[in-house]
Each structure stands twice: as C-alpha cells, then as structure tokens.
C-alpha cells in the first residue's frame, strides 16, 4: 500500500541547497530572489475596486511577520525577526539650525572654486527637445555666473556668513487667500470655490492704475477725440482726452476712492458700466487661470520632488559639504563645508562657495561612482552637472536647457557621469557629458490611464541600460537599447497594488544606490499620497511590501540610510512636504522577502524646536513660527565618524523652503539598553518613551544666535502704492501744514510697523496728558430701580420727562463726536476687528492675513469716508497707510471726522484700548453712517 521513495525526506531549504553545485553558494547573496514570496492576490483592473479583499493588511506588525516556510516551531528563534524595540532616539527634542563654526574658522581654509574650463558643446541629437549649451553661451545668457573666480577668499566676518541662512522669506499664498470664504451657511456639503470675485475687486481697488490706465492709452491712440473743443468752455463739460489720460485713477463703482475728485467721480459714473465689464472680464479670465494654477500648486507643489539638499563626502569622514540652494528665490547654489566632530553638533565651516543661477534650484542630487563624485542640479528650465575634483571643488561639466521644463534628474549609480532627465513634454533622456543626449522614451500621454499632470520622473535600475520612467499613473522600465516605446510596467496605479480611488504616484526612487547587503539592489520605492510600495524589478506589478504611511502632506522626499549596525535592518527616511519625518526599518537580507522589521517611527519636525527659542514678542514669534513651518524641500543623512561606538549614529539635515538648514542628531537605541531593564519593568521605564532628550543651554544659545541673524533681515517692503489721482489742489494750506506734522508722526509709526516693534511713547513725540477714560455711567439697572421707585411713588411721568430732557440736553451731545473722532483715527484694531474675536488676545499669531479680509467688498456708495470705513476690506497691513492717506484728504461736510481732529487728541488715542469699547456710549454703530453728504 505504501510506496516509499528511497531518498529520505529532508527539510526543503537544506535539500535544495545540497543539490546545487558548490559554486552556487559562493554567489553574492545580494541578487538572490526571495525563495518564497508573501501570498498576495493578483487582480488586474482599474484602481478603487472595492470588491477585492485587501490582503495587504495595513498593520505594521503583520509586515514584520512572514509566512514561515517550514516548521513554525523553529520560527520562534529563527524566522521571527520582529525587533520590538527598533527605535532611534533624537539627541534633542527637535532639529536645530545649523550655525557657523566660530572656533574652527582658521582650522581649514575654505576651499576656493576655480572657474570651470569652457567645455565644448556636445552635438545635440537633432530630434531631441533639449538643446545643449556650452558654458560660454550660458555665461552670455547670464544664466550661470561663478562670482568666486580663482582664488577668491571669502569674507572673513562670521557675522556676515550667518546671515546667509536667513534671507527674507514670504510664506506665499494660503488656502485662506484663495478660497471663497462666504457661501451657503446650511449647505450640507461644503464646496470649494476659488475667490475670483474677491481677488479681482481687490485688484481693481488697489491697482486701478494698472487695470485701467492701459485702456485709456489704447483709447487715446485709437480714437479721434479732438473736435472743435474750444467753443464750449462750460465747467460741466470735461475733456475726454484728459479723462482718458487720467484713467489710471479710475476706480470702479463702489470704491471709496472713486469720489475723491469731481471729475473722477463723474467719469466713474459715466464710464463705469463699460469700463467695469470690459476690464473686469478680461482680467477675471486671466486671474481665474492664475488662481487655479496657484491652487493646484498649493494642493501639490511637485517642483521640489526628490529634494534639493545633498551631502558630498569630503576628504576625511569628519568633513563634507552640503549643497543646497539659498537666497529668497533659491537661485544661489551653496557649497557649504560642514565639520562633524565626534561628540559635538555639526557646524558650518567658513563661508559657503556660491554659484548664482538664473532660476530657482529644485533638485540637487549627488552620487559617488567609482570614486568620482558628481553633482546634478535641476532648475525649472535648466539642468547642470558638476564634478568634484581632487580638492573637493566643483567643476561644471555641462549645463543644459530644457525647453518644456525639467521635472526630474537622477545620477547613475553604475556609470560615472551618466544622468537621466525627464521633461514635461514626456521625454526621458540619458545624458552624459561626453556622449551628449540620447532620447530613451517619449510619450506625452501618461502610462496607465489619462491624467492631466505633466510630471515625469526617471531613475536607474540594477541594469545600467534600463531606466524607470514614471508619471502619476505608474512606473515603467525602459531598455535604452531596445526599440523605442516598448517597456515593461513595473508599477501600476490599479488593482494590482490594490490602490485606492484617487491614488497617484508622487515619487519613485531606485533603492539600489547604497551597496549594502541588507536589501537586494533591485528594489524600487513608489510613494503615493496614502501608501508606499516596495517593488522588485524582477517581479513587476506585485508590490513586495505596502505600507500606509499616513503622512498629512505630500511625500516627496525619501532617503535610504545605511544600517546602524551590521544587523541588516536598513532605515528608510520619509519626508513630507509639511515637515513630517518618518523612519521605517526595512529588512530583507539574503533570500527573504523585504519587510518592515519593526514599528515605524516619527521624528521631530522643525516646529518641535520652537521651545528652544527665547520668549519673543508676538509678531516676531509669529514670524518665527511661519519660518519653522516652511515646507521641507531637502533631506540628507550622514553617518558621523564615531570610531569607538559599536552602533553608528546619524545626523539628519533638512532644508526648508525659506533656505534654512536644520540638523538633528539621532542614535539608535541599542539592544543592550533594552535588555538591561527587560526584567520586571515599571510603567515609567517601559512606556514613557517620551523624549528623554532636552534642550541644553548650548542649543538654546545657538537658537537665539540664529534668530538674531534672522531678525536682522528686514521684511520685504509692501508692494502697494497709493492710487495716483491728483488731489493736491483741493488741499488747503491749513491741511498741508497739519499734514507735515502728521507726516512726521506717521512716518515714525510706519517705521515701527515695518520693523515690527512695539510703539513707544517717544515715537509719538510729546504726548499730552491722555484724557481720562470716561467714568462709567449709571447702568440701566440703576435707572430701572430709580424709575420703579419714582413710579411707585406716583411720579413716573415726571421722571420720564426729566429723563428725556437729560438725554437730549446739551450735557451729552458734545462728547459724542469727539469720542468717535478719537476712535476713528486711532490705530487700535477696534475699527475692523470682528467682535466675536474680541476674546483672542491681540498677539494672536495670525495677524496679517487672518482677519484682514473678512468683509465682503461691496461697500454701499453712500458710505462715509471715515478712514475706518475705508479700512474695511483692506488688508490689515495696508490699513495704516490708508488711514494716513485719508487723513490728508479734505474734511467732508457733515462729518466732523478725522480731518477735523485736533492732533493732540489723535495722538492720545493711539493708546485706545479695548476697555474703552465697552463703555456704553461708544460703539461702532453710533457712527453716523447713513447721513447723506456731498449731495448724495
């Protein structure tokens, strides 16, 4: 009944090994294919099919477990590699800004750059979209300058060098600026609407000169306006020519400034319908386009995909260079030497070498192949490659223009001097400075399904002649030597990887650059908004690992780091654009499937280091906060030289969009630490992994030093200028004199505002004794009890008459306008602060854009010209200027408003506080808003 085979059964791995020839065992294990893959369902089809059971379970612990091949009994000590305590401890609770070394200044003279020798332009292939430019022609274009010509010594002052890190920075537009804030209150689903109306009305109001003057010029050129004009010289007739010339001052209907001169006002009424529609419709179209673009950029700013920070190793492990863009426009490439002294924080050494480029730097890549270190830089429309020479000075090899815009650049890890670049036209080229360009792939359409994005990406694979070509819908492997257009899909946004609806590729990266034995050199990382996938190029379409990263911002940066110890667990660092950092631990040595070796870990972001800075004034605090919140656009990691330690630490550098370089030191939590207290542990020991690290005085000192340099840089001046219509003739001599006085004062105020410091009394000149706040009037309850008392006594009618006489009597009347005057000309926020926000302290960090634009722009034409009325709907930073401006205008009849205010009381009212608002007499509603004036 039983047939027995002669050969006794043996466990499979052993038997399969024993059958292989001996040389098989000698093979490098790096290229081993996993003997047994993780079970996975394979479905083809579009993404978002909910019918498929999600077999890639999203728990990190399940990734740590692999299905045992044979007896699970052995797995307890053998296959189960779950390292529960794989943790990197940050040395400080947050990253710290990089500082120049003050002592090490004389240690090593900072290298000076030699100008690159002119390179012969390589002949471009005729059908390529790119044109190669030689260095000479680049110079002629002004695209590339090497200011530090041979032997130029850096500026010795350390104070100067520190300012290089702090250029003025503008956070740019936020969702608040772009989105429509009104809308239907009780709509069930909120909708996103771009606020074109608001933007255009603001533009027309603020920049009427820009909007309308060209129209006037056009009309002047094309219309014959000279008639027999000299006959009628009545004052009611105005020359159209003059008006057209002065159209720059035209303000649309509803704008308070439209009524400043009779001529303008009449013209506004007459020409409003025509001017309004023609200009506005043209502008609105353009503006809408721009806003859509800005909104898309806000949703996903793909420009800096890959990261613009690179670490170039130096002569000794202690030294190296950070290469990154600096300057407000990120158009200055810095080569900054860094010293990593053991046991100390990394420091900048000397001044950076600088190369000024014409466009902003978006991506900086470096790679050392066969002892040759190359640096590739991508700008929006240019790419360039540098080589580091013997003295670690960069020499430009070649620069190139990409007409449609470059989206990605990568350096070959196999062949020195070979690059892959891709452009928005859908073309991917292999580029080497010696051989020029070779177009490898071109397809304006996306790979898997139609997607509007023109983002493309290219990277290398384990085969030096095969590239990956990626877009939002997938990744393809393309043989550069094969026939054009063919290739094999490596990753597909679809059911194969059980992608979600709306999922798109954000970043792909070849992970074979680091030649460690931990992971096979055939792995590719694919990141989407939701997940990251590890794909092996030998098994396309089926991800080896899927992990839901859950980052709240686009994941555009990833770095595979060297293993901290020879345990074959390699950290993979992920960086979200919002500053979030995550560390995954990948294992997959030999013939096992790549997996997560432990729970992922988050690292502190730059905003976590806010406590290290000194206590600041609210406005500066806000500025600092904004600066720390700037998007991360570059990541680099270095293993510092620590000869004695068994485990290697890590220094992480990050670059923000503001041009700041921060560093964070990490050390792996060693197993010995864990074992020592692995007995009966108390709660505090085992669970309170709460950062044990704290700020040292050195850290905080460094932060204040950096902050000081940051604050030295003045903010960019506001671009707004007052409308250009004339009003001089209307100003009387009295006002002019007063204007001068006020001008001085307002200058001081403006300066104080620009510098962001508090107003001091000396800024306001001699301050007369402030009027004491009004005594609280008898409250209503007093009146009520009084009245009740009187009524009880039968004298109710008499009391009532007496009361009426009092309120309309002369006792209260003069006080009212005076107080209003004070308020209206004050600088307090009372004029436009939403009463509901009264509770928030004035130093709330969201000062300028937050509440500046809350009012709908529709101001009734009959509205009064008090500065506060004008100030409504004008950004907060402009309100002061507007008030100044309005103060210069002639006094309006019927309003004893701002202009009539005696200067003394105006000055005193600077200190108007909120407490005064609560006095019952004063409130915004008491302003005689509805009084007609000037004939309306």
């Amino acid at each position, binding site marked *: 009944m039983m047939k027995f085979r002669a050969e006794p*059964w043996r*466990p499979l791995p052993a038997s399969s090994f024993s*059958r292989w*020839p001996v*040389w*098989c065992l000698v093979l490098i294990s790096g*290229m081993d*294919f*996993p*003997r047994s*893959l993780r*079970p996975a*369902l*394979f479905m*083809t089809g579009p993404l978002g099919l909910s019918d498929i*059971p999600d077999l890639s379970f999203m*728990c*990190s*612990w*399940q990734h740590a477990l692999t*299905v*045992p*091949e044979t007896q699970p009994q052995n*797995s*307890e000590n053998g296959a189960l590699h779950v390292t*529960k305590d794989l943790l990197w401890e940050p040395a400080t609770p947050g990253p710290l800004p990089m500082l120049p070394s003050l002592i090490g200044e004389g240690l090593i003279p900072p290298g000076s750059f030699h100008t690159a020798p002119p390179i012969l332009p390589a002949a471009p292939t005729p059908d390529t979209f790119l044109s190669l430019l030689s260095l000479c022609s680049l110079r002629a274009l002004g695209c590339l300058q090497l200011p530090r010509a041979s032997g130029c010594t850096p500026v010795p002052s350390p104070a100067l060098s520190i300012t290089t890190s702090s250029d003025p920075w503008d956070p740019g537009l936020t*969702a608040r600026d772009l*989105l*429509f*804030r*009104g809308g239907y*209150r009780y*709509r069930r689903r*909120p*909708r*996103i*609407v*771009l606020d074109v109306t608001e933007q255009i009305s603001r533009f027309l109001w603020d920049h009427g000169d820009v909007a309308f003057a060209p129209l006037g010029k056009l009309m002047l050129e094309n219309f014959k306006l000279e008639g027999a004009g000299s006959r009628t010289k009545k004052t009611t007739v105005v020359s159209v020519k003059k008006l057209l010339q002065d159209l720059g001052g035209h303000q649309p209907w509803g704008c308070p400034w439209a009524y400043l001169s009779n001529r303008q006002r009449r013209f506004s009424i007459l020409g409003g319908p025509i001017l309004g529609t023609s200009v506005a419709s043209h502008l609105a179209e353009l503006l809408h386009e721009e806003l859509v673009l800005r909104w898309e950029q*806000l949703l*996903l700013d793909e420009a800096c995909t890959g990261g613009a920070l690179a670490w170039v190793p130096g002569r000794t492990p202690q030294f190296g260079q950070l290469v990154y863009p600096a300057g407000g426009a990120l158009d200055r490439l810095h080569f900054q030497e860094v010293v990593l002294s053991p046991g100390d924080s990394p420091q900048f050494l000397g001044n950076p070498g600088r190369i000024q480029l014409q466009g902003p730097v978006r991506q900086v890549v470096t790679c050392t192949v*066969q002892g040759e270190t190359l640096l590739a830089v991508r700008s929006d429309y240019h790419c360039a490659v540098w080589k580091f020479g013997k003295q670690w000075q960069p020499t430009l090899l070649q620069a190139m223009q990409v007409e449609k815009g470059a989206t990605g650049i990568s350096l070959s*890890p196999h062949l020195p001097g070979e690059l892959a670049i891709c452009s928005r036209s859908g073309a991917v080229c292999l580029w080497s400075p010696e051989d020029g360009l070779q177009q490898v792939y071109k397809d304006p359409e996306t790979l898997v399904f139609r*997607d*509007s994005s023109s983002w493309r990406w290219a990277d290398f694979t*384990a*085969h*030096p002649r095969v590239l990956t070509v990626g877009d939002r819908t997938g990744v393809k492997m393309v043989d550069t030597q094969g026939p054009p257009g063919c290739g094999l899909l490596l990753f597909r946004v679809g059911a*194969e990887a059980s992608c979600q609806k709306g999922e*798109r590729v954000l970043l792909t990266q070849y992970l074979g650059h680091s030649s460690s034995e931990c992971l096979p*050199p*055939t792995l590719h990382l694919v990141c989407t*908004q*939701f997940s990251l996938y590890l794909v092996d190029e*030998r098994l*396309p379409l089926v991800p080896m690992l899927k992990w839901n990263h859950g980052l709240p911002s*686009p994941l555009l940066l990833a770095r595979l780091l060297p293993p901290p110890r020879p345990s074959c667990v390699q950290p993979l660092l992920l960086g979200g654009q919002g500053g979030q950092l995550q560390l995954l631990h990948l294992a997959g040595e030999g013939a096992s499937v790549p997996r997560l070796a432990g*729970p992922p870990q*988050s690292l502190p972001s730059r905003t976590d280091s806010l406590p290290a800075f000194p206590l600041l004034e609210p406005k500066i605090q806000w500025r600092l906060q904004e600066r720390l919140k700037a998007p991360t656009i570059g990541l680099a990691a270095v293993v510092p030289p620590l000869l004695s330690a068994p485990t290697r630490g890590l220094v992480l550098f990050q670059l923000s969009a503001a041009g700041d370089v921060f560093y964070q030191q990490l050390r792996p939590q060693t197993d010995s630490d864990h074992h020592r207290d692995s007995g009966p542990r108390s709660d505090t020991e085992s669970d*309170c992994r*709460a950062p044990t690290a704290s700020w040292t005085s050195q850290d905080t000192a460094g932060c204040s030093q950096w902050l000081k340099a940051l604050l030295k840089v003045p903010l960019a001046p506001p671009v707004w200028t007052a409308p250009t219509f004339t009003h001089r003739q209307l100003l009387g001599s009295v006002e002019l004199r007063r204007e001068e006085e006020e001008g001085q004062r307002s200058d001081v105020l403006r300066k104080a505002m620009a510098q962001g410091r508090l107003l001091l009394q000396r800024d306001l000149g001699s301050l007369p004794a402030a009027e004491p706040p009004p005594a609280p009037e008898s409250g209503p309850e007093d009146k009520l009890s009084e009245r009740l008392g009187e009524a009880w006594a039968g004298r109710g009618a008499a009391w009532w008459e007496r009361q009426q006489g009092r309120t309309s009597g002369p006792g209260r009347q003069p006080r009212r306008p005076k107080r209003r005057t004070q308020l209206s000309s004050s600088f307090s926020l009372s004029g436009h602060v939403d009463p509901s926000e009264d509770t928030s302290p004035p130093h709330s960090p969201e000062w300028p854009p937050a509440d500046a634009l809350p009012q709908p722009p529709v101001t009734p034409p009959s509205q009064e010209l008090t500065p506060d009325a004008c100030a409504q709907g004008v950004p907060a930073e402009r309100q002061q200027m507007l008030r100044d401006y309005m103060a210069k205008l002639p006094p309006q009849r019927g309003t004893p408003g701002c202009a009539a205010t005696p200067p003394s009381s105006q000055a005193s009212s600077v200190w108007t506080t909120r407490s005064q608002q609560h006095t019952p007499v004063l409130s915004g509603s008491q302003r005689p808003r509805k009084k007609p004036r000037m004939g309306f």
Partner: protein
Amino acid sequence: MSDFSEELKGPVTDDEVETSVLTGAGMHFPWLQTYVETVAIGGKRKKDFAQTTSACLSFIQEALLKHQWQQAAEYMYSYFQTLEDSDSYKRQAAPEIIWKLGSEILFYHPKSNMETFNTFADRMKNIGVMNYLKISLQHALYLLHHGMLKDAKRNLSEAETWRHGENTSSRGILINLIQAYKGLLQYYTWSKKKMELSKLDKDDYAYNAVAQDVFNHSWKTSANISALIKIPGVWDPFVKSYVEMLEFYGDRDGAQEVLTNYAYDEKFPSNPNAHIYLYNFLKRQKAPRSKMISVLKILYQIVPSHKLMLEFHTLLRKSEKEEHRKLGLEVLFGVLDFAGCTKNITAWKYLAKYLKKTLMGNHLAWVQDEWNSRKNWWPNFHFSYFWAKSDWKEDTALACEKAFVAGLLLGKGCRYFRYILKQDHQILGKKIKRMKRSVKKYSIVNPRLSY
C-alpha cells in the same frame, strides 16, 4: 475614514462640478481637508462628537509613531466611542480601524500577552461582523507566529464555517485563503510526522501508526490548498507545500500540472519563483535536458540576473545544438550586465573560459553580437582603472578573470588588462603569462589573429 474631502468628491451634482475640477481631475488629496478647515466655506460643521473622535484618532496615531504604547492604549479606551457614531459610514468603518490600531498596540505593548491579544481579537471579530474573516485570518497568523499551531488551526476552522449574510466574491476569496492557510498548517504537522517517520525504522512497531497518520492528512490538505492556487496571485508557500505532498505520494503528473499552471497561466503575475519551482521539480524528476532548458529560457527572459542562469549556462554549454551554445554566451553576458553581479567570480570564470572556447571554436560573430551592444558601456562599467585597482586589492582571482575577459574583448591595450599585467604576483605570475599569450592570440580587437 470618511474624509471631509471624500464628502467633497462624493456624488457630483451640478454645482459641485467645479469642486472636482479644482481638486485636480481625479487625484485625491488627503491634506485638502486641513486647507479647507482653515477657511470657513459654509457647509455643515463637524459635531463635537466627530471632532473629539478624530482628535483622539490622531493622538493614537501619534503615540504609535512615537512608540508610546501605554499612552496609545489609554487613548484607545476613549476611542471606542466611535462605535456609537451616528454617521453610519463611520460606524461601519470603526471596527476595522480599532482592530488595526488595537492589534498594533497589543503586539508591541511591553505588558501585553497572548491572552490579552486573543481576547481582543475575539471581541473584535464580533463587533461589526463584516470583518470576521479578515480578523480571524490575522489572528491565526499571530498565533502561528507564536507557535500556537493548534489554536491557529481551530481559529481557521471556525472562520471557514462562518456564514453571515450573502456571499460575495470577495468573501469567497477570503474563505479560500483561510482554507489554504489551514492547509498550510496541516502541511506543517504532516511534514513533522514525516520527519518522525523518516527517523523510524521500518520494522519499528510505531511505524505503521505514524505512516497511517501521514497519509490521512494528505487529502484534506490538498483539497484546502488546490482551490486557492487556481485564483491568480502569488501563492508560493502554498504551491510549494502542495507540490511536495503530491510528489511524496507519487502523483507526479498532478504536481507537474500544478506547477505548469502556476508558471504559465497568463492571468498570474510573472513570478520567477513559479519557474524556479518547476525547474527544480523537473530536476528532481531527472527530466530531459531540453525540457529543463525550455523552462530556464523563460526564467532567463524574466530574470536574467538569477543565479540559476549559471546553471542554465552549463546546461547550454553541454548541449549539442549550436543555437544553445550561442545562447550560453548570451546568458553569461546577461548575468554580468547587472550591478549586483559584477563581483560574481563564477560568472567571470565561466565567461573567460567560454569566451576563449568560443573564439577558438571560430565563432567570432557570436562574441561580436553580444559585444556590440555593450562596447560603449562595459569598459566604464567593468574595466575602468578604478575597478582594476580595487579588484586587485580585494580579490586577485577575480581581477585575473576580469583582466582576461577585458583583454579578449578590448585588446591588450585596455587599462584593466595592462594594470593587472603590471602587478607582480608570485603565485599568479604563470597564470598571468598564459593569459597574456591567449589574449594576444584570440582578442577580438585583432581579428586577423583569430581568423
């Protein structure tokens, strides 16, 4: 998670067309919600309940990422309120989220133990019955990895017979998967028993009983696994164990059919392991060489860098067909194309020998065919001065093999060859001299000498 933005992208009514346009034609932005929240754009406000639950969820996630298991567990207590959400969508999604987070906390929590985990899993299975199968499977995996084979098996058996509501295709697949895992567990016990059997003497009194046991297991397992491996997917562990059992009982045809189907079915992904299993099977069966070559030929198409390619080469080298011998050269070149194989001394040794043999055999055209597509990058990739120095330093034998190949392909003037030649090595001196002679004679750079 029912994202705010998900709501935005829900059923598109007329006035919401603009929304989908603005959120970028089909792409989903998880961070859109935070942008929108900074601007009050109307619409229903989140209720307090929803606010606290979502805040709690983010606290748990944060604690998990900081490895603060205790803190995460404490937040988890509060998070259970989400099970009572009035939003039915959220209420349905809640058990899965709780299971994911909770199992992770319990897996890593220093004070958690197996009992806690088991209790949690059993509770979660029955809250929101939709996840019963998934959680059962994951629970079984957990038990399996903690060596609790019996418990795992019991768990899977329970899940297998579980019925609720209507059957969907996705549930069918899940049940198949559960059965297959059960089959895998049975295979483990089977192979353990078989091991015992192999240790026993045939005349042992216990032999018959154990043997009986081994055979009883088989049919159950095969039924369990065979259903799953017909569905397209990657089922390596299942196929492997299934084939092993079939083979053991002498069902070679059945085993071959399973493997052939697994390797060649077009609906399956091109899994290299499928071909490797088939090849290994054929090798065990002492199949004819041509059959093995045809299997490896396909593997060569998929993974030219696989280590079996060297075995493939030896097969091809021995073949009588000229076409195969040409392919043998191609395979060697193909292996050495890959960055991970550059230091594979066996491959270099094979190539050096085979190149010489091919050139001696008057097949210059074969070499030139291979070399033409590589001559513009192999010199830099393999035979640069840098590699000559570092190879000689690290592995002189490798350097010698490479130098010989370099000499044959690039002529005696090549940097690599010259560098190795210059090195004075006592033991290798003779070998290097011989190499020099061969290069002079056979190098393809000077075809005059090799006809």
